[in-house]
Structures are given as C-alpha cells and as structure tokens.
C-alpha cells in the first residue's frame, strides 16, 4: 500500500472574479522511502494540491480523497490532522527566510515543534535534540547557532534549519515545496544533498515540488507533470525524460538548454498558462500545443496508459501505442527531433 494516495483531488477558490479552479481532479501516490517529483509551470496547482491535503489552504472548496497510512486526511477531525502535521508529515517551503518566524530564535522554533507533539520531553532534551538536528543538516557550531535569529543565518542555512525542523520527529513523509528555488546554484545542490542523506538515513518518503527539471532528474523516482490544475503525464523518472508522451512534457524538455542537438537551442513553450477562472475548452493545453487537432478543442482527454504500461499515463489525444506518437513528433519538429 502506498504511504500517501491522493485520489481525484479538486480544489476551488471562490473569489470576487469568479471560481478559481486551482486543482481539477488530481491523483498521485507516494511509496514509503521513495521520492515523487511534481513538476509544472507556475500556477499549475502544485502547492495548492499538497497544502490542501495537509489542511493548509483556507477558504477553498475541496473534493476528493487523500489516504495517508490508510486514513483519509480530508475527512479527518482537525485535531487529528494537526497531530499528523509536523510529526508524520514534515514540510519545507520555497522561501526559507519568510518561512521562519523573524522574532524567534531558530532553536526555539525547532523546540516548539518537538514539544508540540511530545509534551513529555523536557525543554532541555528538546533543545539538545535541536542542536543535534542542526548538526545533522550541517550547520557549523550548532550549539551556538541554535540561539541565532533567522536573519543571522544565510539563505542556505535557513533552508537547512527548515529541513532540520521538518525532519525533527522523523516523519514518514517530507513535502518539499520548491526548497531550492530561492537559493543560488551551489547552495541548491548542498540542500538537495542534505535532503537525500536524511531520506536515506530515515527512510523518509519525499514529495519534491519544483519547476526545475534538473532537480527532478537528480532526486525523483516517479514524476507527475502538472498543467492548469491537472496531471498531464505521470511515470517513472526515466520514462518522463526519455520516453515521454505528452506534448507539454516534451515542451518542458525542449526548454532545457542541453536537450536535443548540440547547438543547445532553447525552445521555451510558447504562450502562457490559461486563466483558471475561464479555462479553455477540451484539452487545457490546446492553445499552446503544436500538435493541436480538432478533437483537442472539443473534448478533454483523460489519463490513459502509454504502451499498456499502467505506471505511465498521459492525458492526450495522440496515439498511446504504436508508431503514431513518434510520427507526429517528426511532423512537428522535423526528422532531427528524435525523442
């Protein structure tokens, strides 16, 4: 059984401008100890999906199911979900400076989390644990720095502190929402290494949210590609990189600098993501899709297996088996564009 299984999640925000359909029937699952990468452009609903299952979105209409260790997080009593947050599911967010409270010492903030879930532990022991955790994520002189305020930490150190906090109670699942986006490249790699090491040590499952395919390549076992609040394609990492089916996934790959020919041509996906209030008809990607057909404008495709592999699904009207998909690619991008 999967550690987390999200089924047909729908999240809608009523706003003054109309209903924002942020998540429209998303399903994915994470196995124990594994890493699920969620990738997609800004606004595709990555954060909203994961935060909603943890009860962190406010003022939203939510439908669907999210089974965590066999229990539905979305139907749980508030107290029960509260107990799971921080203890069984740790979370880290994009901006490590604004994610830590500016008025409290880093150590205090970690101790607060430990003691919120374990009243029995003494303040001293919790503090000791905080120091250990900071050491574990590679903060130099953790016994001293534990008394620092967040603004006395560098960006990378703050994100490490966030990781230390999220991992404090050895959660079964870590949700990392763009943990490296706000950091510079060398620090990014360090932070990813820290997460990887802790994951290995504690057998934590990770949901790695990002719009950086490099991060996906480095960390993910499985990948979910999201667009306009829905899953476009889901598969193991290698299939996503070398055997993708969906034109949106293909577009993401083409926007990578090292893709395809040695001229390193960058081909960003043209156009912009649609308004989530007035979504396009049919396939939500059709206004930007180079393969668009009449059917795409009329009917929305559902996730179907590619080449009969149940773990690789794509929501697209292009042929799911046989040479049809490859031929379409050659028509659009030319012979040179081998996948």
């Amino acid at each position, binding site marked *: 059984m999967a550690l987390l299984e999200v089924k047909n999640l729908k999240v809608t925000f009523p706003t003054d401008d109309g209903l924002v359909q942020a998540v429209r029937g998303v399903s994915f699952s994470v196995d124990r100890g594994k890493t699920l990468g969620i990738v997609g452009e800004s606004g595709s609903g990555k954060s909203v999906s994961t935060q909603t299952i943890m009860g*962190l979105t406010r003022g939203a209409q939510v439908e669907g199911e999210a089974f965590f260790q066999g229990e539905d997080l979305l139907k749980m009593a508030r107290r029960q979900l*509260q107990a799971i*947050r*921080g203890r069984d599911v*740790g979370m880290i967010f994009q901006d490590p400076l604004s*994610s830590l409270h*500016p008025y409290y010492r880093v150590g205090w903030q970690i101790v607060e989390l430990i003691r*919120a*879930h374990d009243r029995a532990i003494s303040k001293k022991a919790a503090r000791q644990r905080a120091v250990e955790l900071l050491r574990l994520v590679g903060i130099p002189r953790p016994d001293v720095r534990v008394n620092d305020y967040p603004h*006395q930490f560098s960006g990378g150190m703050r994100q490490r502190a966030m990781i230390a906090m999220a991992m404090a109670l050895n959660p079964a699942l870590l949700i990392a929402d763009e943990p490296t986006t706000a950091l510079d490249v060398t620090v990014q790699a360090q932070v990813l290494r820290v997460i990887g090491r802790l994951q290995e040590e504690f057998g934590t499952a990770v949901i790695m949210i990002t719009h950086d395919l490099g991060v996906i390549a480095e960390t993910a076992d499985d990948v979910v590609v999201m667009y306009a609040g829905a899953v476009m394609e889901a598969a193991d990492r290698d299939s996503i990189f070398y055997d993708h089916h969906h034109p949106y996934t293909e577009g993401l790959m083409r926007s990578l600098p090292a893709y395809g020919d040695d001229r390193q041509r960058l081909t960003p996906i043209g156009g912009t993501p649609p308004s989530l209030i007035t979504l396009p008809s049919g396939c939500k990607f059709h206004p930007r899709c180079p393969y668009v057909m009449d059917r795409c404008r009329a009917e929305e495709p559902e996730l179907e297996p590619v080449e009969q592999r149940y773990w690789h699904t794509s929501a697209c009207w292009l042929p799911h088996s046989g040479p049809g998909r490859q031929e379409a690619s050659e028509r659009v991008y030319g012979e040179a564009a081998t996948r």
Partner: protein
Amino acid sequence: MARFLVRRILQGILVMLLVTLLVFGIFFLGGNANTVATRLAGRNATPQTIALVAKRLHLNQSVPLQYWDFLEQLVWHHNLGYSYFHEQPVGSVLKQAAPITLSLALGAAVIWLILGVLSGVLSAVKRGRIIDRAITTLALFFYSFPTFVLGLMLLFLVSYQLQKRGIRIFPGQGYVYFSASPTKWFESLVLPWITLALVSAATYTRLTRGSLLEVMGEDYIRTARAKGLSERRVVFRHGLRSALTPVASQFGIDVGVLVGGAVVTEQVFGMPGLGYTAVQSINNGDLPVIIGIVIVASAAVIVANILVDLVYAVLDPRVRLH
C-alpha cells in the same frame, strides 16, 4: 542598540529645544516689555504686578538673553514660571493636575489596549463572519462617537440613574486622590475610563484586525500550522506577536498625547487634570500655566516616542541586533 538609543534621546532633546523656542517665540516676542508682561501677568493684573513680571523675566534685555534666561530657569531650576492668577508657581499648579490626568490616561489606556486587541484578534480570526461584522460595526460606531456625548450619556445612564435609586457608587463629577481613598479614587475614575477607553479602543480594534490579517498571510504562519501547532498558538504566539508591533507604536503615541491632558473627558467629568486646567487657563488668560502645559505635553509625546522605539527593539530582534 545603545548607540541607537543615545541617538534617539539626543534627537528628543533637540526637538524639545525647538518646542521651547517656539513657545518662547509665540508668547514672549511681539511687543515691548510692557505688553509681554501684561500678557503674562493675566487679565486683572495691577500695574505693580506687570512691572514685577517685566523685571523678573528681564523683559528689557535683548531677546537671546531673555530666551537664555527662560531656558536656564526651565532646565536648571525646573522652574516653569509663576501663575499670577493662581498666585502659585506653575509647577505647583501642574503637580496637582498631573496625577489626575495620569490616572485617567493610564487606566483608560490599559482598558482600551486589552479591549481593542482582543476584539481585533477575534474580528480577524472570524473574518467575514457575523461576529467580525458586529465588532467592526461597533468599532466604527464608537470611533465616530463624540467623546463628550458618550461621557454625558454614561453620566446620565449610569451615574444619574443609579443615584436616582439611591446608589451612589459613581460620583459622576470630580476626582478623589488615591492617597485620600483608593476605593473612592477608583469609583471616581470608572466612568471617565470607560468613556475614554471605548472611544479609543475602536482604533485598536481596527489596527489589530488589519495588522493580524496581514500577518496571518505570511509564510511563517503557514510554517507554524505545518508544525502541527494548535490554531490558538498559531494566532497568539506567531501571529499576534508580529501584529502587535504597529499597535505598540500607536499606543505609545496615543498615551503620550493623552498625558498632556484629556481635555474633553476631564471637562465632562469635572476632573481638574491637565486638560481641564489648560482650558481654564485659556479662559482666565493665565498664560504661564498654558506655557507650562505645552512644555509638559510636548515632553510626554517625545518621551513616549523614545519608549516606542525601545519597545520596537524589544519586540523585533532584527532591530535589536543592528
């Protein structure tokens, strides 16, 4: 931090100096020694008194020397001048009035701070619900309510109605010194406190509500929730802690201003505090007392501002450590 504080204090002294210069300019300049002396001596002064005033204040000397004399008296001798109307030093007049205003201001401030912050928090937490609407409406109501009307209404509804039934707990008029009788002191202050607190609490309700709503959208609030803290802890320990910063600065300034005299409330309840005394002095043409109150009130505001900065530093480590 220490350097910051020293700088703020020096700034305060400079502002205070400007205030004295302004006061001096307004009250001592314009006219010859005789007219100035007449002005200061009060309405029914005899020619002898006027001559005495002119002599005492060296009004025949050059202007800078006069100012220097004024400053010297103020700073070295803590002498605010002499009220020819009261036939007392201004300092003594103010010493009788100040405790009244202080009791009134500080007591009311505590009440309105608690009232305003709690209602603001409730309003923010229940945003958009009936209770939020009720609080917001009530706050607006009291905000736009003239102080003297509220005071008179309380006098009529509470003090007068109770007295008609033979219950004399709230005297309604006058002030009892704490040293004379702590309970009577308290009784004499309850209605003025409520009046002042209700009118001012509204500002704090709105300020707290707005500030907390803004803070609750911050990333670190999401982190606090993600840690599995109770919502109450999230609101009070994480949200309110930051939301209080603007509230604290408003509070300091309001109290500072109020210490200079709660003019309307003191009038309505017949409490001879600084505000009451100021109005009386204007009516009597008792210029030295007015000058004294202006100086004391300015000092109160300046001190309050410095205290606000201190509180800021205590609240926010980012300020404290730089």
